């Protein structure tokens, strides 16, 4: 999994360099994930220790099929992305899409995006325009496409939660997670958030660990219950 995330950041960094070949092709991360996963399967199949008397078709048979299809899809996706530098196509997130589409719209890309099954987009040109303007305003402050700072707060918060949970205990770890995610969502009141976070994690602890008897670590605050 770490392989995939690393590859992810690399491709994204490429995307940040506006005007380079990578622009509009950051979607190549998708075939990269597919290739990484297929390779994981390949390595697993090659290193698998199969008992000699295993019935045929053995345990490698089905993963092998998946791996072959996986590589085939990787190739097809790569070709698709290289030939059509594709704008982001999450249909409910209009601003990003509208912004990129304007930047490098070719007949091919517009045909591709027009074929998406969202029949009502065209009916709302005013909303489109407004969204476009707002996206541009937002972009003057945030050049990157996705807000990686926010993302890092969220993902980092969860990683920290997972790692300190058994040591620090549920109340502290969960409060930290709550606080980090709240911050990643753009909350501007760190101290007030901290109060909310601690209250929330304590309530969850009381409801689930004390009342329902779930096994949540009490950690360094332990002994109280």
């Amino acid at each position, binding site marked *: 999994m770490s392989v995939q*995330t690393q590859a*992810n950041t690399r491709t994204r960094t490429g995307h940040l360099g506006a005007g380079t070949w990578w622009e509009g092709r950051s979607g190549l*991360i*998708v075939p990269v994930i*597919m290739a990484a*996963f*297929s390779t994981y*399967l390949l390595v697993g199949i090659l290193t*698998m*220790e*199969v*008992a000699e008397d295993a019935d045929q*078709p053995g*345990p490698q*048979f*089905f*993963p092998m099929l*998946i791996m072959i299809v996986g590589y085939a*899809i990787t190739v097809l996706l790569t070709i*698709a992305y290289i030939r059509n530098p594709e704008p*982001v*196509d*999450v249909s409910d*997130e209009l*601003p*990003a899409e509208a912004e990129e589409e304007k930047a490098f719209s070719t*007949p091919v890309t517009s*045909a591709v995006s*027009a*074929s998406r099954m969202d*029949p009502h987009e065209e009916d709302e040109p005013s909303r489109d325009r407004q969204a476009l303007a*707002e*996206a541009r305003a937002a972009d003057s402050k945030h050049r990157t496409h996705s*807000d*990686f700072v*926010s*993302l890092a*707060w969220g*993902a980092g918060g*969860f*990683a920290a*939660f*997972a790692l300190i*949970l058994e040591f620090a205990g549920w109340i502290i770890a*969960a409060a930290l997670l*709550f606080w980090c*995610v709240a911050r*990643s*969502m753009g*909350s501007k009141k760190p101290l007030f*958030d901290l109060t*909310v*976070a601690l209250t*929330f*994690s304590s309530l*969850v602890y009381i409801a*689930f660990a004390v009342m*329902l*008897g779930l096994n*949540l670590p009490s950690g360094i605050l332990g002994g109280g219950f």
Partner: protein
Amino acid sequence: MDAVLSLFEGFTHALTPMNLLWVVVGCFLGTAVGVLPGLGSSMAVALLLPMTFALDPTGAFIMFAGVYFGGLFGDSTMAILMNTPGQASAIASTFEGHKMAKAGRAPQALATAAIGAFIGGFVSCFLVVFVAPLLAELSTSFGPAEYFALALFAFVATSSVVADSVLKGLMALVLGVGISVIGIDSVSGTERFTFGVPELFDGVSLVTVTVGILALGEVFFIASRIRRKANDNTINASGRPYLSRKEFGEALPAWLRGTAIGLPFGVIPVGGADVPTFMAYGLERKLDSRRKDPQFGKGAIRGLAGPEAAGSATTGIAMGALLALGLPISATAAIMLAAFRQYGLQPGPLLFDRSPELVWGLLASFFLAMIVLLIINLPFAPLWAKLLKIPDPYLYGGIAVFCGLGIYATSASTFELLVLLGIGIISFVLKRYGVPLAPLMIGMVLGPLAESSLRDALLASGNDASVLVSSPITIVLYIVLIGALVYTGVGRVLARRRQAASTTAKVEEPVS
């Protein structure tokens, strides 16, 4: 007439004050847990499993029925209000349901879902009582080759119904099926793709993947574009929680169609209610596109009514199949099976002879649970909708904490939490590039079934691939499958051509 008499007997067991109390408590707890984003009905049952061991078996299972159906109601409440379905079967409800809520019709959407689930559940419970033996026979005539055809059918159906791009849909599917082969091989006992990590011996848990993809990935995705939100989608949940006559009339055919689609799937192990909900959604969408003013995309009431009724109908029948055959259809049913075993009971035809009190009491309590749920969900729908007034940062903070809670509670391992984080990040990337995630989950649920049935079929025939198409059932399934593929393929090409023509015309005009 035996069935009716037994059912009446069942009601006399279920209607004792204590058992009634358990139904109500179960329904309430189930709804509450189901409403919590990221926690679905299977987690509700799993979380409450230890609690019920304090009760006698009849009381415990009656409460389970409440929790199970309550979780389903709660799932769809959350799917509608926040776009975070707790269970794969609620995904189809998010498409139109959430759009309805965004359009200011949240209470009506909730009412549509509650009534749809009620209708589907009620009809299916009736059927369970009367035609359980027939359904059992149909299901037992399926061999490995048929199961494989069925799984393949489900794979293709989901990647063509949900996916705008077939390539991306297939990619998600391959990832899902690939994840499902991790762990100890059930046929030969070989360790696969674990690379010596003991936590992976049991494979990656479906709960982890579901929570990672649906809840945590969603949190990350929203975080990554929190500052570029074009408009504030505060959902006004106040208003009439009942449906107008017109809305009711519009939803009714969809409820009935959904129920009809959902019923047969209760005995077919294709991973529970997800496939029929998607099929019901696809059907309503198809029918809608033929109307003069297509409602889909704007919050179509029928796009919500169909899947809800289908999901509930499947669930009801699935409970019957579990009781009559001992066959777990979904993750939740598998947990219930484990609960039966805890009490030393083995579901199956014998259960009806050995403990008729329990079986018929349980069946009767299904009806009671449905009524109780309708009562606590219809008038209180706006109350559940109030959850949306929570400011975004705290709402998503809470969701993230519950993701951690659910996974840690079921696995008690840091490793599983890190797997969850990894899956969350990957699902964020996939979401950002428009890869549909439903096929991933379908692949994960049905992967093991597809693999074991394919291998069993080939094993029994000595690696003769023709066994896969040797029985009438498989041939029919494959013909329908090929027909559906050709049909959607032709439709797509035509649509693309039409749109290409219209965009070329547009491009020639000067762009502002």
